């Protein structure tokens, strides 16, 4: 098995007296979709924000391509090629698809230093085509006219444009209907097929089983298990999320503590 592009070892993070991450191990491989699951309050968002540089980690190792790195802010993470697509997407409604995809990173004409609209439209079209996006009629549509799935598509396609290495998707299908969910999941798969390491946060077990290669289950600030999706079923994932263990999988010491309390 190849070296994971992103590897976290024993990550801890506290907010005052509250210890949210209690030594989390996590890894994401290039070309794979890693589903990050866990109940509310398990620490998914905190973990993702640590990866993205929004929060500084208190302890543990952050390895990128096998080398220890220090991520002090979102800019550091972006420089490594880590891109987070947040649930609220944050697109500007009054701008079109191309303008949103290039927001803050507009191409300029070399001679005149003006916006190079043709270049941006060309690259945006290429990025969408590389993901086989067929649901967008025109790249010059205003984002306000797009459906939820199309907005998600735009936000995801943006990560292709910037040659991201690790893409973190926060609940991309939470607000979508059946057809649009399927489209977005297809998109997630294609991102991984392009060689990116995709981290998918989801509450929907069907989505997780359908699209992911690995499942990482967080339970009360600990990594209960990180296993191949092919080696696990729906019930086991639910048990990992709700109890932290399932058969031979999961947190041993926690189960023992529980048994001890019961005895």
């Amino acid at each position: 098995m190849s070296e994971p592009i992103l590897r976290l070892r024993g990550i801890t993070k506290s907010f005052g007296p509250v210890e949210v991450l209690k030594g989390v191990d996590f890894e994401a491989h290039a070309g794979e979709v890693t589903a990050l699951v866990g109940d509310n309050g398990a620490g998914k968002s905190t973990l993702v924000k640590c990866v993205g540089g929004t929060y500084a980690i208190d302890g543990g190792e952050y390895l990128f391509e096998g080398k220890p790195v220090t991520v002090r802010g979102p800019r550091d993470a972006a420089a490594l090629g880590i891109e987070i697509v947040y649930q609220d997407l944050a697109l500007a409604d009054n701008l079109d698809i191309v303008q949103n995809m290039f927001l803050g990173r507009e191409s300029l004409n070399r001679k005149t230093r003006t916006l190079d609209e043709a270049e941006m439209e060309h690259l945006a079209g290429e990025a969408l085509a590389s993901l086989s996006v067929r649901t967008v009629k025109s790249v010059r549509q205003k984002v306000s006219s797009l459906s939820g799935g199309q907005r998600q598509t735009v936000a995801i396609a943006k990560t292709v444009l910037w040659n991201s290495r690790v893409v973190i998707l926060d609940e991309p299908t939470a607000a979508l209907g059946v057809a649009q969910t399927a489209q977005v999941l297809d998109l997630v798969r294609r991102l991984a097929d392009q060689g990116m390491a995709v981290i998918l946060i989801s509450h929907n077990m069907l989505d997780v089983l359908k699209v992911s290669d690995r499942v990482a289950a967080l339970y009360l600030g600990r990594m209960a298990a990180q296993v191949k999706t092919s080696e696990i079923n729906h019930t086991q994932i639910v048990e990992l999320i709700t109890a932290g263990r399932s058969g031979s999988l999961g947190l041993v010491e926690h189960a023992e503590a529980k048994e001890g309390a019961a005895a």
Partner: protein
Amino acid sequence: MTGTETTATRDVVAEHEAANPAANVTALIPQTPGGSFRAYLRNLRGGETGSVPAVVGALILMVIFGVAQGNFLSSSNLVAIVQQAAPTTIMAMGLVFVLLLGEIDLSAGVVGSTAAAFGAVLSVKHGMPWYVAILGSAAFGGVVGLVLGWLRAKLGIPSFVVTLSAFIAFQGVQILVINSKSNGIQVSDQTLHDLYFGRLSPAAGWIVLVVSVLLYVLVKLVQSAARKRRKLAVEPVAVLGLRALAIAVFGGVFVYLMNIDQSVAWQRREGIHQRGVPWSAVIILGLLVVLAFVLTKTRYGRHVFAVGGSEEAARRAGIRVLAIRTSVFVLCSGLAALSGLILAGQLGGVSTGDGTGNTLLLAVAAAVIGGTSLMGGRGRIVDAILGGVVLAILQNGISDLLQGNNASAYELIIEGSVLLLAAAVDSMSRRARR
């Protein structure tokens, strides 16, 4: 179980893709003039009203006033309308930037006139040449805008409050700057007068028109060529030709009307002519080109739109929201200073109380009538011109039409109603686009 559900959802996608076979990932540009027109109508129905309300409003008003008073459509009155529109239009151009962010600047009228008073003091009391007066005035406006913008952006005081405070305070500053027992300063500099009254020679008017149309076509062709090189959809040449033709015809009629000699018999005997495109119209054209360029072709302009559309998206994209927010107030106050100078040219000087009253609200009305949204995110520089012209037509026509004791009362009521109507159109078109 999960396996069957997977195939079921895959089928939905397949169906969807079969229904939408065209994988068009470039811009969707109609390829015939008819198609362009139909796309335009579709946008209209979708709430993208653009210039239509302003243009239709201007035409209706011109017909009404033209029928009611024989001399409304005389060339001398049309020149007067163009001149009267200038101060409001230029102030509205600055307000477009502020409105794009969903902000408001209630102080622009007073700050503009105070800046103009500063320029007048430089010219009259210190004997400075006209360009120093203009630059000094613009710098005064710019500095005030910087302070207002900083108070809004950095301290987070609502722009309504910041600029209302400035509206009140600068009426006092204006008195201090003018500092005269007669409450005013007469400006004698000819160039400063000409900002309002100056006229181009007839030939110069035609040259400006021809150069403008040629530049427009050239820019469009260069853009089109850049798109073709990357195999993107381009606007058909016929549509570009029709656009250029429309601009040329409209501009030609305008220059022709402005060039009609309005001198009366004795002036003609003395060899004095009253003709030519007003300077103010050329100033406005110049500002239109420069500001529209900034807003639509530069990174800065794109970021102004982004902050107006979604501050959060702009911040995450690494845009310096604070700087953008401050800068629009600088632009607005700077342009207000220019507007104040042109007003001073009209009035022959500056006096205390200039720029108060509804000066500012008329400029806001101009931008909104033209199609700029009060809620931010949508607006164009040309909106200021369209709205400024509509308001100038309205004021000019009504002041002649309404006579008697209560004439000015009705004028105020009608002007207020027009602003309200424009804001209503803005809100309704916003709802249609949802």
